[in-house]
């Protein structure tokens, strides 16, 4: 069994109102140095067998198909 982590982030040009709300909260809490927050998602995907080329390719297809919407989001894979 192997674990593949998929990080999904809104593309830089897409507005992230959740991140903006967090920046606002940072200021109110006294974390004055925080100038920007972008909020994303982390998926921990466990697969049978090794995270070899075939296994990673399958997780990549999963990310493209379901976990991320390529119209507005980018994603990255890594093996943990």
């Amino acid at each position, binding site marked *: 069994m192997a674990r593949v982590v998929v990080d999904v982030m*809104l593309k830089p040009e*897409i*507005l992230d*109102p*959740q991140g*903006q*709300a967090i920046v606002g909260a940072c200021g109110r809490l006294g974390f004055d140095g925080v100038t920007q927050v972008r909020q994303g998602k982390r998926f921990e995907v466990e697969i049978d067998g090794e995270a070899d080329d075939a296994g990673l390719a399958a997780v990549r297809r999963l990310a493209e198909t*379901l*976990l991320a*919407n390529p*119209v*507005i989001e980018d994603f990255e894979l890594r093996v943990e």
Partner: protein
Amino acid sequence: MTARVGVVTFPGSLDDRDAARALRIAGAEPVALWHADPDLKGVDAVVLPGGFSYGDYLRCGAIARFAPIMSELVPAARSGRLPVLGICNGFQILCESHLLPGALTRNASRHFLNRDQRLRIESTATAWTGAYTPGEEVLVVLKSGEGNYVADPATLDDLERGGRVVARYAGGAPNGSQRDIAGIANEHGNVVGLMPHPEHAVEALTGPSVDGLGFFTSILAPLAHST
């Protein structure tokens, strides 16, 4: 013959009954469809209603896209054969299914919006807007937290050039939608996605107007000719 129009209920759909009621008032026969149904029961058209399918888990519409009923709906819609209207969450499902371009993201204002909303009907050359006149303003209901329409500039230009912007928010988009877009169509005009809710504006007792009825009467005339 009365047109049979399916209304798909997903777990978490809210407005399926209002959509069915609007269709009935318009003179169609609503047919209840369930997300797990394997087929469309031979309906003439389909409405994907508003709500929070699958709890909006992952992204709005992302799970509904893969519901069993979509396996017949998506190819029939893509081919231009089946008229499909996606309202609110239904619009999100159509974008996730790649039947319509772009995506719907969180309102720029960060607030859930729930209000009466004026729209300008931009295109009457779709299956769902033939009953209106170009430039006509209608009053319907807007209630959504993720209604901010985004697409890349080339896609937006394509939509404009092809007359596929179906409706815009009159007086500016309250949710940040690019080019004030409230609704779009596919290249055939049979698939329309609309963020505001025409099905809540079909009776004076319960809505701000009866302006929304035109979306549901529009599909009846061509269907009457073909059957």
